[in-house]
């Protein structure tokens, strides 16, 4: 089974209206702006613990999440904030989450980007990153068993490909031809470990070993990412099984805020800086006459308001710290997310479940 590289934006434009292309930029601007604001709050001592971001990788989560329908289910990783934004999590809750406030998605029980908005159909990540590949595979298994036209999607990094759960998930998904989309976010480094110490083959080739399609995509092109995920979803719903999308990108910041990235050659960073995903989408839209500056101003105002709201939010009450370890009453189901892509407004591909009770 051959792998192939999707040409930047090939096939994407025919499925994306102008409003969609603007939304992709908007999601990436919100992600970058929120992470920059969170970094400032971190330096002010208002974000406890450590701080992780996805600077330079915004297109990977924005493009893939944009192709997902409300009834699809997502396991989102820590450099994929745009997916949460597209799914419908408000900026104030995101900043509240970073600051450990009661209004954050996990109400202070977990930090930074370790969250999934249950009501929006997202299952929060754990730090053992490829674990979520199995959770996504299991959700897809349930969809297939029930004959539902839905898929599950998860992201993971180049480091994750070395873990057993990567293999177990890819294998199971291939054996059962499950409607799951695996997005390998290849950002060149797992913490400080470069690719040549992580695998001896091109990781996208591994898809063939498990019996399904692997696609290598420019991970800094949101429209190419969208197209790859849209096609993968289509394959999943048609019963043609999983897809591995290798999104080639670059982690432009350290593993976390403390990491000065001394192990990364400066030229490598400079090279990738020229391929910034936001610059690319902006230039496309400017060429189409879109007022990008107005959009930027709008996003900044939204982040300012969100920061003000989050800073006013209360800290969680320690009196409740031992509550909710177990579900004591009626379980709250996963709900449906928000679909942004105009294609879902006009096709039967979209649908809502009313929750996975």
């Amino acid at each position, binding site marked *: 089974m051959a792998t192939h590289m999707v040409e930047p934006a090939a096939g994407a434009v025919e499925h994306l209206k102008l409003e969609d292309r603007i939304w992709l930029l908007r999601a990436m601007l919100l992600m970058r702006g929120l992470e920059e604001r969170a970094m400032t709050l971190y330096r002010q001592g208002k974000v406890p613990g450590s701080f992780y971001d996805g600077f330079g990788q915004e297109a990977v989560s924005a493009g893939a999440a944009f192709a997902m329908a409300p009834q699809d*289910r997502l396991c989102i990783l820590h450099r994929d904030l745009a997916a949460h934004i597209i799914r419908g999590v408000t900026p104030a809750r995101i900043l509240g989450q970073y600051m450990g406030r009661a209004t954050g998605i996990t109400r202070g029980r977990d930090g930074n980007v370790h969250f999934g908005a249950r009501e929006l159909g997202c299952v929060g990540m754990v730090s053992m990153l490829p674990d979520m590949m199995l*959770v996504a595979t299991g959700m897809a298994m*349930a969809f297939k068993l029930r004959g539902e036209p839905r898929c599950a999607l998860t992201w993971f990094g180049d480091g994750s490909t070395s873990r057993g759960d990567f293999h177990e998930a890819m294998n199971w998904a291939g054996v059962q031809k499950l409607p799951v989309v695996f997005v390998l976010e290849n950002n060149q480094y797992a913490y400080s470990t470069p690719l040549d110490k992580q695998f001896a083959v091109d990781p996208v080739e591994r898809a063939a070993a498990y019996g399904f399609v692997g696609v290598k995509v420019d991970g800094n092109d949101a429209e190419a990412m969208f197209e790859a995920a849209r096609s993968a979803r289509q394959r999943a719903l048609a019963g043609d099984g999983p897809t591995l999308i290798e999104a080639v990108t670059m982690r432009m910041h350290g593993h976390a805020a403390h990491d000065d990235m001394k192990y990364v050659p400066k030229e490598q960073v400079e090279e990738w800086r020229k391929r910034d995903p936001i610059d690319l989408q902006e230039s496309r839209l400017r060429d189409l006459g879109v007022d990008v500056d107005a959009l930027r101003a709008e996003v900044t105002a939204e982040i300012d308001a969100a920061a003000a709201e989050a800073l006013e939010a209360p800290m969680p009450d320690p009196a409740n710290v031992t509550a909710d370890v177990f*579900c004591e009453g009626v379980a709250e189901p996963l709900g449906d997310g928000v679909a942004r892509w105009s294609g879902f407004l006009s096709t039967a591909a979209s649908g809502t479940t009313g929750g996975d009770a």
Partner: protein
Amino acid sequence: MPTMTYLQAISSALRDELRADERVLVMGEDIGVFGGAFKVTDGFVDEFGSDRVMDTPLAESAIIGCAIGAAVVGLRPVCEMQFSDFISCGFDQLVNVAGKMHYRQGLAVPLVVRLPSGGGFSGGPFHSQNPEAWFMHAPGIKVVAPSTAADAKGLLHAAIHDPNPVCFMEHKHLYRRVKGEVPAGIYETPFTARVVQEGTDLVVIAYGAMVDVAVEAASGLDDASIEVLDLRSLVPLDEDAILASVARCSKVVIVDEANATCAAGAQVAALIAEKGFEDLDGPVVRVATPDVPIPFSPPLEQAVLPNVERVREACRELLAY
């Protein structure tokens, strides 16, 4: 009321749930056509099909991880570990993903993991373990361990109905050795302790296969009034029942088949030290497997596993204190 073996009771619970609730599915290695290593699901695939009696790849992390995914979108998976020992390969998914899910994001994981456990048949270091304490130490996971056929069925029904991850410790040595009357249909046994026999001089606290050992040990102590308490559930631990037995009897022997350090019995002993001290009339005594891998050869295995004589001797000594 029909009479069933412990194993038949487990099969019966699974069959009843599969018939009653289309969300329930069982998944594991060799459980379909082969019917499972211990034949718990023998014949199931003919009645329910291979989608609901699912032969999985040989991958325990995948079994638990996929079951978590299926559970959060509305199914009620019951996973079989072929032997409880193999849960070590699925530990991360159970402890880090399933156990912490509800606390972090309010998402319930209605998942049961069946763990055929325990020694006594020369299974050796990798087919004889009692790993329940690993999961007692991990927040968010319930742990139950039936000792009778009726409780095996009732606790399994309750575990499947529970919205949380539940480790169901089923003792292999009891599978075909223990028989008893089992109520018909679906019923729930609560996650609380059960007084097997009442007494006033000493209580033996046990669970799983050690309950029968405790009863037999007590039967050889005719001049004393021995109570036997079957914990049935380790998480939640029935503190009230334990402390009530301590208050009645004042002397306590705790029996674990598991390795002694940080075992369930150690937690019970700590509880009694903290909350039952005033009722004690002697030291808390423990009988457990020493901290060694379970050896293969019969004389070696018999030398480490608690047995009737060791429990009886512990009781005699404590009664004389």
